[in-house]
């Protein structure tokens, strides 16, 4: 009786200062997202500092970069679910991103829908387009999905450039300012907060999804599809679900991108953008959400550093036609980074983060 009481009195989280060899003593502890209350507190403080306080002190330029990181991270989280966990590769996420942006811009321009309807609508349209290419190819060998989505990328790019003359064609589509009844979404800062909240909600939901039965099914499919199917996992349905989630997130991020940049140009959503999204995964590390976030920080800053270097050389007027040269340089560096990471560090930058975290956990025995 007395023993029972003691187990009931156990707190939901184990003591804050844990020793290295701490083992799980109850079944329910396996469900906890954070091993210690301290970890959860640390997470909350980090999120508040990073997303709540940091934007207030950043200047406009840095805020813009931070905004871009958040938008890329949303796509990357979607790709983590599909590529990192389920093992399916899509080359059309740049196109889905573009579909989201164009859907948002046209819905706001011609239907003047409010912000909170536009965002899911953009994601839904991107999902429908994705399903067009994914449904036939997901039933076949895994090499068919990259080929079908490659075709999808070119088809969507063609539609955006040549068939949407009412939406500005190749000159670009000007996005009206977001309108909402009470919130003043006109400033960059409030728009950033909306994006950041979207990102946090998406991270929270997808983390829970990946810890659920569905997430375990995804991982089983990645390891061995035949064995997973033998264990009663419906391979086709799960792969399709992962694809739908990730293209929905790409479309959603595209809508946020349209709000952020205000003028969308169709040639931006090309194959290189799709490869860029995949490079995020490789740089950060396949198959972890923290990897997706670290990778998007890395890619945005890489892009910006090369862009800044290019702008500098254009100002100093060494090379007259430096625009295409900078694009070539960026593509070269992107390709080089992908190749080097796959050869030498396939687990990505997230492994450094994990190592540091482990070091703190095992202190003083690290």
């Amino acid at each position, binding site marked *: 009786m007395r023993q029972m009481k003691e187990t009931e009195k156990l707190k939901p989280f184990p003591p804050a200062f844990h020793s290295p060899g701490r083992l799980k003593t109850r079944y329910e502890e396996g469900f906890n997202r954070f091993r210690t209350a301290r970890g959860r507190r640390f997470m909350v403080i980090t999120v508040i500092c990073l997303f709540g306080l940091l934007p207030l002190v950043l200047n406009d330029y840095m805020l813009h970069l931070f905004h871009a990181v958040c938008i890329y991270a949303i796509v990357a989280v979607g790709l983590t679910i599909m*590529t990192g966990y389920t*093992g399916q*590769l899509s*080359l059309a996420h740049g196109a889905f991103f573009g579909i989201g942006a164009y859907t948002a811009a046209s819905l706001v321009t011609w239907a003047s829908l409010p912000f909170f309807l536009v965002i899911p609508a953009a994601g839904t349209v991107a999902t429908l387009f994705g399903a067009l*290419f994914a449904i*036939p*190819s997901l039933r*076949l*060998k*895994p*090499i*068919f999905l*990259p*080929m*079908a989505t*490659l*075709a*999808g990328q*070119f*088809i969507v790019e*063609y539609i955006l450039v*040549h068939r949407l003359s009412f939406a500005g064609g190749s000159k670009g589509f000007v996005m009206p300012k977001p309108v909402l009844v009470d919130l003043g979404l006109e400033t960059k800062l409030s728009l950033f907060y909306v994006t950041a909240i979207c990102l946090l909600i998406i991270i929270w939901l997808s983390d829970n999804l990946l810890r659920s039965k569905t997430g375990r099914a995804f991982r089983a499919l990645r390891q061995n*599809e*035949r064995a997973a199917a033998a264990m009663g996992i419906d391979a086709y349905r799960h792969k399709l679900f992962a694809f739908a989630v990730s293209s929905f997130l790409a479309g959603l991020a595209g809508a946020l991108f349209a709000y952020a940049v205000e003028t969308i140009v169709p040639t931006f959503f090309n194959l*290189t953008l799709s*490869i860029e999204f*995949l*490079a995020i995964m*490789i740089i950060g590390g*396949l198959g972890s959400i923290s990897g997706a976030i670290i990778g998007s920080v890395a890619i945005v800053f890489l892009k910006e550093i090369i862009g800044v270097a290019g702008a500098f050389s254009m100002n100093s007027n060494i090379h007259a*036609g430096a625009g*295409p*040269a900078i*694009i*070539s*340089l*960026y*593509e*070269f560096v*992107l*390709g*080089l*980074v*992908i*190749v080097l990471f*796959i*050869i030498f560090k*396939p687990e990505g930058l997230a492994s450094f983060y994990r190592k540091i975290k482990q070091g703190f956990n095992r202190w003083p025995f690290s």
Partner: protein
Amino acid sequence: MEFLLQLSLDGVSLGLLYGISAIGFILIYRSSGLLNFAHGGMIGFGAFLFFALSAWANWPVIIAFAVTLVCSFGLGLILEKWIIRPVFGRENLIHYILITLGLALMLKSVLSFVFEKSYHHLPVFVPHAFSRGWFGFQFTSFHIIALTAGIGVLLLYRFYFAFSPQGISMRAFAENRLTARTLGIPVKRILAMSWAISALLCALTGILLGMMNGPAADSLSAAGLKIFPVIVLGGINSIGGAVIGGIIIGLLETFVGPYASPQLQNLLPYMALVLIIVIKPTGFSGDRDFKKR
């Protein structure tokens, strides 16, 4: 009618070129199970090297051609040794595809940086005096070269894989890797050879495509990606199917330009790809292998 015949001749010549480069692609796919997205980069490498040697260095056409083929062979060996071999043992489709995508970006950006995206002109082997009309066809030097090269490569390929020891061991390796290994077939050499031959065929295609409409890094790497409709049409790992698929895609492309819209020309192969995946993913060869996971 003459216009129709001429267009079909153009289409068949273009299709044979697609067929040649598809053979190189399938060689890599069968030996290492890898989708080579860097095919366009390899095609561009051949075309631009030939351009640089013949137009910038003013070498005779034949020597430049031979040196280009040898260099591409070397490029294939280098790529295989430094980039593909480190990841080969992983059997990870995502790594395989992404590493070739990265390679494609690198090759394409280097070529478009060095040659600055402007249009160039390649010399032709066969002088224009040879071009003549025949039954309403207008044989230009390009058609002659493309047809001879296509048929020649097919014959050479056939003989190489039917009779030479290297070709036979490559076929054995593609058939069953483990058994081939136990029988003492050198895996590394097979992989290196498949990449080298593929790069050689790519260079040949690149030179001929460059002769047709001027080498440009963008259009050549786009031609490299058109491999995918071709091989899916042919049923991913069959050579004969790839040649037929190449001819069909080539005809489709040439007929769509004048009869529909030139913008659709680059798009139609990909629409065909999606349609084939929906209707008949085995392609022409009818291989049951497509369901193997």
